[in-house]
């Protein structure tokens, strides 16, 4: 037991590295927020684009969503970061990680929101159109508010699991929590910093899941 504590919860080593982890936490929080905001927004736009029913749009959106959901995000990050400079599109590690995760989240969000749109009775948009609302108005005021609520539970899972992937930024030199923790643990020859990192993740993500739960109960209106 003593050995266990020495190895995984070593106070002396924790004291040496907690500030680094804290700094990494700042990066992770910033990146996560950027990914969540941009990913959900892009997903929403794509779902709306698909809802227009244009064949070309549908095809493009479906292809995008398929590919992004099939590839491990790490690979997307590596390609964005290392391959794009060759075509004169260099981006920082933060940007590359952000972009990759945003695209992946957008793919999932698009699918979830689209499923929500499909699940709505057709009567909803018909009722709206019959009072003279335009297509986009019916979308904005009647269809999307309901579709989004339906998409909350599946999206929560995805938002969390994809945002946790911010850790992948470590391969492209992004000093987020996990990168910092792994480096520290290797320097110290002790995995305690990894545990600090895990704690930092909990601090960040527990509020996210609680918020999602709150949203879900608040938005669960009887049908």
């Amino acid at each position, binding site marked *: 037991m003593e050995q266990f504590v020495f190895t*995984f919860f070593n106070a002396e080593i924790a004291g040496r590295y907690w500030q680094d982890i804290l700094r990494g936490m700042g990066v992770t929080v910033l990146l996560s927020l950027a990914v969540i905001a941009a990913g959900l927004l892009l997903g929403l736009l794509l779902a709306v684009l698909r809802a227009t029913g244009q064949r070309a749009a549908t095809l493009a959106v479906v292809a995008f969503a398929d590919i992004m959901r099939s590839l491990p995000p790490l690979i997307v990050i590596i390609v964005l970061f*290392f391959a794009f400079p060759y075509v004169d599109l*260099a981006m920082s590690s933060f940007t590359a990680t952000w972009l990759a995760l945003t695209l992946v989240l957008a793919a999932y969000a698009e699918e979830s929101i689209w499923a929500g749109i499909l699940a709505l009775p057709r009567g909803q948009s018909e009722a709206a159109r019959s009072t003279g609302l335009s297509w986009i108005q019916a979308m904005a005021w009647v269809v999307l508010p309901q579709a989004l609520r339906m998409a909350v539970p599946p999206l929560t899972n995805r938002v969390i699991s994809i945002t946790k992937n911010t850790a992948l930024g*470590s391969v492209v030199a992004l000093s987020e929590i996990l*990168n910092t923790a792994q480096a520290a643990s*290797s*320097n*110290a*020859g*002790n995995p305690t910093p990894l545990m600090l990192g895990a704690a930092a993740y909990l601090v960040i993500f527990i509020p996210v899941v609680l918020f999602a739960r709150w949203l879900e109960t608040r938005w669960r209106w009887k049908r």
Partner: protein
Amino acid sequence: QTGPLRTGVDATFAPHAMVKLGGGLQGFNIDLGEELARRLGRKIEIEGTEFSGLVPGLNAKKYDFVLAPVTATPERAKAMLFTEGYLDTDYTFVIKKGGTAIKGLEELKGKTISVNKGSAYEMWAHDNAAKYGFKYDVYGNNADAVQAVQSGRADANLAGSTVAAWAAKQNPAVQTTYTVKTGLVWALAFRLDDKAGRDAAGNALKCMKQDGTLGKIAQKWFGYTPAPDATVVKAGVGQGVPGLDGYDATPVTPKCS
């Protein structure tokens, strides 16, 4: 003790530890480990794994020691018990082929350096960035760090001389340049409480140095004949790395069979 020695390497560290495409592992440290086991009269099992798993694995007694190249540093010496060094670890810069060579550390001002995560080079960069006025980025493995140089994200990659030489050989787009003498060594790492194991391995290392076996392995993988005072051929006095925690200065006469 009769069972096989269990140990692990991070197999992304050519030419010290890397995969064979047909299966299995190869490299300087692999040969070192096998020779060591032979001399200790044991079999050896070497696992390719992530660097993050090595030290926890050691402490959890999954591994008897860490065979992967570990640079002996004061911080690490507080957490692990080192044998004496088996190889000098000097640092060499890798730049784009045809780029302007680096002739001194002063020239690093304003440049960006790429290093491998959790390596001694990262520590070195961390400690010297302010002094020489450069920036550094930390990558997932050294191949990525070299790729960063190639795609123009970093001006130079800093890695162990052996590793840098391998990278330059494999990848025609980069070349080695300036080397920093560090005085640091690579050593085998044991659990803090496993002095016996450390001493036995240390003893075997001394023998391997004295009879030139280690030097031959170095020549095989690095392609140069070591200088007579190089760590790879010159046995140390006591057990461990002088100046670090865990050093036992009592002179040892190696018992070789």
